[in-house]
Each structure stands twice: as structure tokens, then as C-alpha cells.
């Protein structure tokens, strides 16, 4: 499939560096792409994959580095420019206009044959042709808001096909697809590669990467940590390159007495943002002193589950009980009063107020309590005292109490939130991605605090994409796939292999063989 190795790569990115306030998203990254090749980019969340691709697509200018197309240096200053150079990108998040039809979305940005009028009839015809050739079922006249997630992904692909890109970037195109849809997509992508197009493919799912790509580049913390060929590497090796460290052993887990169930969830059905059921009838219980880990790829309903339990999202049906008491649904305040704490996944959106200072963030939940508030007036002496205690206890690094939260580093913001959430000694704790983007030291500390809480008798639900974290913390592990629990396994019976397969929606009893394209 690959051309002879001596040829000039269609694309080369050299020494790309990109800073964002507070982070180095890409640090001297070099990357190349050959004609007809599927080149995969792997990396943890925040490794800088999307940023690199957006630079290639002209979305951001790089701080340093140069892009070469067919050996010529180019300065891609805007998406229009990139498109003109034959580069198309399917973004991690849908780039569709819901109030326009499929045909209009496809035609957007193209010069119409009947300029200045649109020529949607011609576009429709061409879409139909494409959908016939590639087997992409989609109604060109439907409005995008009417489409299901999978169909929207197909529209994104049609947009790229329509533009006849020579370089196609696919940023996590499979994150929202069913296995069948993934298979279909791969078929199309292979067809495209065979037709001489070059593809960059981003995914967190190792087996997909192994199945599709000709070459794999791994990013970590904005740096390239290695390149591999899928035929002579293994998932474990890739994981090692991605994470950059040995898998840690679980922290000490003193046996805690299992008493009555503290959190009961029954027949929970929750609608997602896309108005389809994101959680489809979940039931489970967590006892005091127990940690239930929820593993799974993001977007399989974990977030909706957490939000429904915390009263931020009203479930369609189902019941939530804390200590046997039913909690009114869709009421964040009531859930908190019933003894629930929540460490949210998006900490700067939900967990903290960036422009509030440290102590204001500490009292976000309980500023109305008597000890902090008398007759409507805040009592700063006890508030400051409380904040200092928490800062010391959780070793939050901050110049002073008046520092706005936005000036703290990611790890310290997470410590701040954790300190606040645990200070009320909750009956039930939901922790979503508790250590995402946090350095090892802080992550260890956070794990320690969570175990400590477990010893104190809190029922904890830990939601994480990081399998090591789930394995380290949990007493039992539930794997979520497409809004359902694939199964709950005890820690002792859980292996990475088994959980990983369940995460991919595969029944552990019949694991699929790794696919490696055989040379023609």
C-alpha cells in the first residue's frame, strides 16, 4: 500500500511548538505522512493531538515550527487556506450547523456552480453518488438537528469526501460510533487510502489503531514519545508509550466493613444532550466503605450517570436512594443535603469559579451554613480559618487566600475541589476523572484521600477513563458501554485485558483477534 520509502512525504510537520496560557500543548513535535498511508496519532487526554492537527488545519498558528506539503514549506493561516491545499479535517467535536440541511452543511464554504445562488440540487445529487459509492446512508434533505449521532458522523465524512481531500484528518471519529458503524467507517477509510489519499487517524482505542493504521505516532505531554508499526508492537507497549510510566500498584486497601448499601441506583434512564438515551436503565448499589469504579470510554453515558445522581440532570425514570432515603430527582441542592458530594469531570466549568478566589471557592457549597454566615452576612474569620485548614490538610499550593482559582495549576485546583467536597464528610462521593491532567505526585495524593474517605465509610463512585486508576482504587469495577453496564467484576477477578475488552463492548468470553492488514 505504501509507496517506495524514498519518496517525499505528502506532509511533514517539523518542530511544531504551541503554547496556551499555562500549558505547552505541543513541544517541538515532528510528524510526517506518506501518500496512501493511514497514520495514527495516539496519546492521553491533553497530550496535544488535537492541537497539532488544528495547527495543520490552519486553525492556530504555531509558535514555532514549519509545515511542508509535498516538500514545499507552506504557511497555513486559515482553514480556508488548508482546504485549498487539499487538507480536510473531521473534528473531535461535530462541526455541523444543526439548523441547516445535510446538503447545505456539505455545500458550506464551497463555490456554487450557480454562484451567487446555491445549487443544492447538484450537491444533493453528488451526495447521493458518494453515499452509493461508499455505502454511507444519509438523507441530504434532512436537517442536521434531526439526525442521530452516527448519521452526523457520516455527514462529517461526506463533507470530507465531497471536497476530495488528499489529506484527511480524523480526530476521534469513532468515539461516538457503534462497533458496526466503526467497521463500516474503516471500510471507507481503507477505500480512500487505496485511492491514494493520506489519512491521519486519532483514537484512544488501541485496537482500532492497530486495526486501521500503517504507522503509529505516540504523543505525551505535547512531545512525541515514539513511533511504531502496528505489526511489530503490542497494545501494552503502546500504552506504556502513552502513559510513560510503569503501571502503579494499588494503594493499601485496608479491608473495610461492608454494611448497608449507602447509594442505591435503580432503573435509571437519562437523556443525553443529543436527546437520545445516554443511560439506559442502570441499577447498582454501593455500600459504605466501598469504592465502585466505572471504567469505559468517555461518552458512553458516564457523565450523564454522574449528573443524574447529583441532581444536575433530571432522569427520565429511575430512583436514587441515599442511606435508604429516596432523593428527589433533578435537584442538586436536595442531593447535597442528603449527603452527596461530587468531584466533577470538567473542573473549570462545573467545579470551581475561575474568577473567585480560593476561599470563595471553598465555601461555594456551604456559604449559607451558620458557621460561615450570620443573618445573611458572611463571617470571614471562620471562613478564612476553614480555608487555611483545608489548604494545609490538602497541601494546596497557593500564594494566599485571595488568589483567583484560575491562577492555580490544574493539580492544585483539583485538590481544592477535593478538599471542599470531602470537608463535609459525605455519605456518598461521586468522583469523575479525579486525576485527569494531574501530575503523578498530586494524583497519588488524591488517591490517598479517596482511600482515606473509603476507610471513613463513604460510598464512592469513581468514574475514570484511566484503567490503572480504576484498578487501583476500586473494590468492584463496572464497565459502561453505550449507556449500559457490561458487567460488574470484583477487583480480585479483574484483569486489564478483561476490562479493556468490556470497554470496547466486547463480551469477555469471545475476544476478537487483533487485526493487522496483510500486505497485498
Amino acid at each position, binding site marked *: 500500500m505504501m509507496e517506495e520509502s524514498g519518496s517525499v512525504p505528502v506532509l511533514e510537520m517539523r518542530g511544531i511548538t504551541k*503554547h496556551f*496560557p*499555562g*500549558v*505547552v500543548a505541543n513541544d517541538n513535535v515532528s510528524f510526517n505522512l506518506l501518500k496512501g498511508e493511514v497514520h495514527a496519532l495516539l496519546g492521553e487526554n491533553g497530550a496535544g493531538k488535537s492541537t497539532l492537527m488544528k495547527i495543520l488545519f490552519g486553525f492556530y498558528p504555531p509558535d514555532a515550527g514549519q509545515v511542508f506539503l509535498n516538500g514545499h514549506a507552506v504557511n497555513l493561516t486559515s482553514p480556508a487556506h488548508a482546504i485549498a491545499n487539499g487538507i480536510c479535517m473531521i473534528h473531535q467535536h461535530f462541526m455541523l450547523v444543526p439548523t441547516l440541511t445535510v446538503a447545505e452543511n456539505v455545500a458550506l464554504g464551497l463555490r456554487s456552480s450557480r454562484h451567487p445562488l446555491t445549487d443544492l440540487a447538484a450537491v444533493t445529487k453528488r451526495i447521493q453518488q458518494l453515499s452509493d459509492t461508499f455505502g454511507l446512508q444519509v438523507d441530504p434533505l434532512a436537517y442536521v438537528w434531526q439526525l442521530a449521532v452516527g448519521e452526523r458522523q457520516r455527514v462529517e465524512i461526506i463533507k470530507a469526501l465531497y471536497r476530495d481531500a488528499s489529506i484527511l484528518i480524523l480526530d476521534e471519529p469513532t468515539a461516538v460510533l457503534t462497533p458496526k458503524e466503526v467497521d463500516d467507517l474503516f471500510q471507507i477509510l481503507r477505500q480512500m487510502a487505496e485511492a491514494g489519499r493520506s489519512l491521519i487517524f486519532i483514537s484512544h482505542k488501541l485496537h482500532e489503531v492497530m486495526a486501521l493504521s500503517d504507522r503509529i505516532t505516540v504523543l505525551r505531554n505535547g512531545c512525541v514519545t515514539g513511533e511504531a508499526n502496528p505489526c511489530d508492537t503490542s497494545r501494552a507497549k503502546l500504552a506504556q508509550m502513552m502513559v510513560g510510566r510503569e503501571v502503579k500498584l494499588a494503594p493499601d486497601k485496608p479491608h473495610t466493613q461492608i454494611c448497608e448499601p449507602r447509594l442505591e441506583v435503580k432503573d435509571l434512564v437519562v437523556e443525553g444532550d443529543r436527546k437520545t438515551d445516554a443511560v439506559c436503565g442502570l441499577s447498582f448499589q454501593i455500600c459504605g466503605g466501598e469504592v465502585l469504579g466505572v471504567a469505559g470510554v468517555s461518552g458512553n453515558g458516564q457523565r450523564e450517570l454522574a449528573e443524574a445522581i*447529583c441532581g*444536575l440532570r433530571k432522569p427520565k425514570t429511575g430512583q436514587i436512594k441515599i442511606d435508604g432515603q429516596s432523593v428527589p430527582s433533578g435537584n*442538586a*441542592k436536595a442531593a*447535597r443535603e442528603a449527603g452527596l458530594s*461530587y468531584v*466533577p469531570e470538567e473542573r473549570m*466549568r*462545573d*467545579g*470551581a*469559579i*475561575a*474568577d*473567585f478566589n480560593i476561599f*470563595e471557592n471553598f*465555601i*461555594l*457549597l456551604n*456559604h*449559607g451554613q451558620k458557621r*460561615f*454566615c450570620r443573618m*445573611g*452576612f*458572611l463571617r470571614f474569620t471562620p471562613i478564612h480559618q476553614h480555608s*487555611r485548614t483545608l*489548604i*494545609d490538610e490538602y497541601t494546596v*499550593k*497557593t*500564594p*494566599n*487566600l*485571595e488568589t483567583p482559582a*484560575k*491562577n492555580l495549576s490544574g493539580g492544585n485546583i483539583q485538590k481544592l475541589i477535593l478538599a471542599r467536597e470531602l470537608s463535609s464528610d459525605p455519605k456518598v462521593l461521586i468522583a469523575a476523572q479525579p486525576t485527569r491532567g494531574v501530575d503523578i505526585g498530586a494524583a497519588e495524593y488524591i488517591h490517598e484521600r479517596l482511600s482515606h474517605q473509603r476507610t471513613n465509610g463513604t460510598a464512592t463512585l469513581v468514574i475514570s477513563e484511566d484503567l490503572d486508576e480504576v484498578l487501583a482504587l476500586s473494590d468492584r469495577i463496572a464497565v459502561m458501554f453505550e449507556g449500559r453496564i457490561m458487567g460488574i467484576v470484583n477487583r480480585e477477578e479483574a484483569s486489564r485485558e478483561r476490562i479493556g475488552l468490556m470497554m470496547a463492548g466486547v463480551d469477555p468470553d469471545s475476544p476478537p483477534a487483533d487485526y493487522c492488514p496483510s500486505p497485498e
Partner: protein
Amino acid sequence: MNNLKTKMISWTIPSCAVLAALIIGAIMLSALGANPIKGFGTMFASAFGNLDGLASTAVKSIPLLLVGIGICIAFRASVINIGGEGQMVMGALLATIMALAFPGLPAIIFIPLVLLVGLIGGAAWGAIPGALKAYFNVSEILSTIMLNIVAVQFMNFMLRGPLIDPGEIERGTRIPQTARLPEATDLPLLLEGARMHLGFLIAVLAAVAAWILLWRTSLGFRLRSVGLNPAAARYAGIPVKRSIIMALAISGAMAGLAGAILVFGSESHRMVTDGSSTGFTGSAGFNGIVVALFAGLHPLWSIPSALLFGGMLVGANALQRAVQVPSALIIALNGLIVVFVVSSEYFKRRVQTVQTDPKVQKTVSDSDKNQESDNLKD
């Protein structure tokens, strides 16, 4: 040190914006054949140059300050209240009705009572767009504009009909104004010989109260958190919808109080309309927004800001007399200042992101780190 720098930036940039607008104003003055130095000099002298001028400036700044305080609170909660005009009118009307209804009360009870009623009138009128936004998703920008029209027409109706001075009917002149309100409601003068009345003190106290509300009470804490990050506020169990209504109601209350003070502190001690939309308020409902923005949405900084803009309005009349330039120039200039100050936010943000950029920040954050242990001890 970092903090001080940020504060300085947040002041110098809008000041530059105002300066730029004034320069354009000076160019316009010259174009109109007037000497800009003499023009602005006259303005300044008449507004701040003597006790009388200062007193007029103070009186003129009262509604600006009160509306501005309300805007600070509303904008801090992320609601854009453009309904100050209508809220002033409704507060004034309700207070006037109150004053006419109980003529016999002593001043010591009567003044607080009517002002409180004015406050309530404004609050109620402000709560309507709040509820429309919270429960029907109606943009408060538009509903407040529409409610301004409704309030003014309602005032015209009331002053031409039910509330008209019976003497006007008797004489057949039918000037749309109420009878003179009971003397017990006259706001006492604070300075012998100058017209500055109790209203100024009330407005300043209200600014302090608003500052306390925003930064010292749990209600203010909730309003600010809803304004800065509604998602996080919801997550923390703060009732977001109710906070939106509350913010608009408080904002309206301040405007309502401004309206009431306008009536009881007026020369005529009665409510008069000329039928136009801004004849009663003198556009304070709009200008208060400028005052608040210029003060960086800070109630205490709103005091000098209101005095500045009040002074400009007082000076405008002097300008007209001294250099024969219509006072309309000042309205245009106010508009320019609004546009420039709002646009200058961009440069403020730019400077602040540059500050937080790690590359630029390195040395600063290092020194901060050294300080942290000291700061945490006390």
C-alpha cells in the same frame, strides 16, 4: 504587586478610552467654531469650580449613581438591565401615590416610607423581565426596553388622569403633574445655601450597601457566582433562576429609589411629565450604565464615576451658554465614551492574558511562590 498591576491596568485602559472620546469631542468643538479649551474649561469650572456647581453636580449624579449601582449588581450576575428608565418611573409613581395617600405623617417616618415604596416599585418592575428571562427565556435586553415604553405611557396616563393636580382641573389648564406633595416628604437640604439634599447621602450609602451586599453577604456571593459561572453555581446547589430574578429586582430597586429621590428632591416637589420618554428621568436609566461600566462594575468606584458624568451633564448647559454649542454635543460625547469604554475591554483582556502567559509570567510566579509560606501563616 501583581494585583496592583492588574488594578492599574483596569483603570488606565478605560481612562485612555474616555480621553480618546474627549479628544474627539474637542475636535468636534473646534469644528463647530468653539475653542475646545475654553469649552471644556467652562464645563469643568461650572461643574466643579464652586460650591454651587459642586452641589448641582452632586444632585445630578444621584440618579446616575443609584442606577449605576443597580447595573453593577445586575451585570455582576450577568444580566443586562436596560430597563433603568422604566424602573425609575415606576418607583417614582408608586412613591408619589404613597405620598399623596398619607398626607399627615411626620417627616421622620414619611421620608423613609416613601423612599422604601419607590424602591419596591422599581424592584417589582425589574422582577418582571427577570421572571420572563428565567422562566420564558425572553431576552432581558428586549423586555426591559419594551417595559420602559410601557412605564412611560403608564406615567403619562396616571399624571394626566388619576393623579393630576385637582387645581389643574379646576383652572382647566390640565398640566400633567401631581399636586405639590406633602412638605414632610421634602428631602432636607444638606448644605446651607446649596441645593444638595439628603438624596446624595442616601445614594452614597446605597453604594456602600451594594458593596457590602456583593462582597460581604451570602446573597451577593450567590449573585456573583451565578454571574461568573452559572454551571458551577448550579452544581453547587445555588438556585440560578431565582438569582437572576433577584439580580434584576435589586437592580430595579436601586433605579426605583433613584426615581423616588428625583421626585422628592425636585424643585417642584411633585411629579411632572412632558409626555416624552426621557423627560422625567433625563436618560439616567441609560447613563447609569455608562457610570457603572466606567467604574469597572464596582459600586464604590461608581461614586466618583457618577460625579464625573453628573459633572459633565451640569457642564453641558454651561457649555451651551459659554461657547454657543448645543448640549446635544454632550449626549453624542456620552455615546462615544460608552462605545470606547466597552471596546477598550478588549485591550484590558489582552493585557491580562499576556500576564498569565507562562512565558511572560515565569519570574512573577517564582516570586509569588516564595511569598506563599509567609502569606499562609497569618
